C-alpha cells in the first residue's frame, strides 16, 4: 500500500476565536477523486486552504506528500495544482501571457496539454483577461491548475460559472487525471450529480465538522428511507433508530435514518409489527435530507 498523498488528523481552524472547522481527519490516496459537499459556510474553502497550507491550522494538522502542509518545500508545492473559487488572474495580461507567467514557475509545464485544452475549450489565448467572460476566466483558471500535471489537484467550486458543455469537458479532463491512477483530485461542488459521477470518496461537511466520509456505496447503504406499512395504526411515538426525519400517517410511516444496516430490517419489522421497505436515495436526496 502506497502512503497517502494527504493525511489530516484532528484538523481545526478558528478565526478570532470563532471555530470554522473542528476535529477533521481524513486521508487521500493516490488515485482518489474526492468530492467535498457542504452548504455555504460549512467550511469547504477553509478545509481546502488548510490542505494547501495557505493558512495555519489552529488544531491538529495536515500532511501533504509527508510534509506539514504549512511548511511545504518547493518541490512538493510543484506537485500541487489549485483552482480557487475566485480566480487570481491578472486583468491586464492576455491569456497567453497569463499562462506564460504561471508556467515559468514549473519546470515540467506541459505546453502541448495546455494548448490542446485551450483549443478544445475555446479559450482565446490572445484575449486580455479583463475582457473575458466569467466562464472563460474559470476555464483559463482550470488550465493553469492542470498545466504542470500535478499529482494532487485541488479545485474549489470549479464549475460554478461553466455552461453545460464546458462542464462536461471539464469532467472529462478530471477523468483523464483520475485514469492515471497515481494522481488525486479533491474538489468541492454544489453540483451533487457531478460529485456522484466523479468521486470515489465523498466528504460531507456540516456544522463545521466532517459529518460523513467514505465511498458512495457505503453512504447509500447507511442513509436510507424506510417505509413502514402496518395493518393496525402505528403508535405516534414511533421508534426508528437514528431517524433524521419521520412522517407518520395512521398505518404507514416514512423515515429517513442514518447508520442503517441491512440486518436491522427484520428486527424493526417485528418491533413495529409492520412491513418495512428500504428505499435507497440519490446523493442529492441524501444531502437534502441531512440538511432539513
Amino acid at each position, binding site marked *: 500500500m502506497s502512503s497517502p498523498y494527504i493525511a489530516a488528523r484532528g484538523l481545526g481552524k478558528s478565526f478570532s476565536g470563532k471555530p470554522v472547522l473542528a476535529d477533521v481527519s481524513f486521508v487521500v490516496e493516490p*488515485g482518489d*477523486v474526492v468530492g467535498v459537499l457542504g452548504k455555504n459556510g460549512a467550511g469547504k474553502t477553509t478545509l481546502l486552504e488548510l490542505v494547501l497550507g495557505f493558512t495555519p491550522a489552529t488544531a491538529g494538522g495536515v500532511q501533504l506528500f509527508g510534509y506539514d502542509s504549512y511548511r511545504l518545500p518547493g518541490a512538493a508545492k510543484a506537485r500541487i495544482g489549485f483552482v480557487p473559487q475566485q480566480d487570481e488572474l491578472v486583468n491586464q495580461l492576455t491569456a497567453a501571457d497569463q499562462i506564460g507567467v504561471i508556467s515559468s514557475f514549473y519546470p515540467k509545464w506541459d505546453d502541448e496539454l495546455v494548448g490542446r485544452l485551450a483549443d478544445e475549450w475555446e479559450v482565446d489565448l490572445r484575449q486580455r483577461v479583463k475582457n473575458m467572460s466569467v466562464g472563460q476566466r474559470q476555464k483559463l483558471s482550470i488550465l493553469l491548475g492542470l498545466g504542470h500535471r500535478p499529482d494532487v489537484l485541488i479545485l474549489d467550486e470549479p464549475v460554478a460559472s461553466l455552461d453545460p458543455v464546458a462542464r*462536461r469537458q471539464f*469532467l*472529462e479532463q478530471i*477523468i*483523464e487525471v*483520475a*485514469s492515471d491512477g497515481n494522481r488525486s483530485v479533491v474538489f468541492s461542488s454544489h453540483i451533487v450529480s457531478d460529485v456522484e*459521477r*466523479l*468521486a*470515489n470518496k465523498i466528504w460531507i461537511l456540516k456544522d463545521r465538522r466532517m459529518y460523513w466520509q467514505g465511498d458512495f456505496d457505503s453512504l447509500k447503504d447507511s442513509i436510507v428511507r424506510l417505509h413502514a406499512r402496518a395493518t393496525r395504526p402505528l403508535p405516534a411515538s414511533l421508534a426508528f433508530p437514528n431517524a433524521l426525519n419521520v412522517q407518520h400517517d395512521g398505518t404507514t410511516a416514512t423515515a429517513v435514518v442514518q447508520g442503517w444496516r441491512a440486518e436491522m430490517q427484520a428486527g424493526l419489522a417485528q418491533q413495529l409489527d409492520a412491513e418495512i421497505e428500504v428505499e435507497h436515495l440519490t446523493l442529492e436526496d441524501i444531502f437534502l435530507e441531512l440538511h432539513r
Partner: protein
Amino acid sequence: MAASGQLPPGTELPSIRDLALKHAINPMTVSKVYALLEAEGVLERNRGKPMTVAKPTRTQTPHDKRLEQLEPHVEQVALAARQLELTEKDAVKALQEVWEKTDEQSVHRRTRPR
C-alpha cells in the same frame, strides 16, 4: 447486454478509460463493474488486450442462482399483466406462447426491443 446475448462472445469491450470518458464517470466505477462481471463469468480479462465477452458458462451457475436472476424479469411481466387487468392464466399462457416461438439461436439473434 453481454449476459442477454446481445453482445456475442468474443466482443471486445471499450477500455476503462474510454468508457469512463464516454459516460463522464469515475474510472474506478467502470473498473469495479468490469471486475464484478468478470467474477460472474460474463466478461473475460485478457492480458494486455481489451476485455471480451466470455463464452456462456451459465449452466455452471447453480440453478437457484439462475432462477434468482430471472426473478426481476418475471416480476416486470407480472406487474405489467396486473396493470393491464389480465389474469395469472393469461400471463402464463402468453409466456408459454413466446417460449415456444423462441429457441437457443434466438438468444444470440435477439436485439433490444424499443
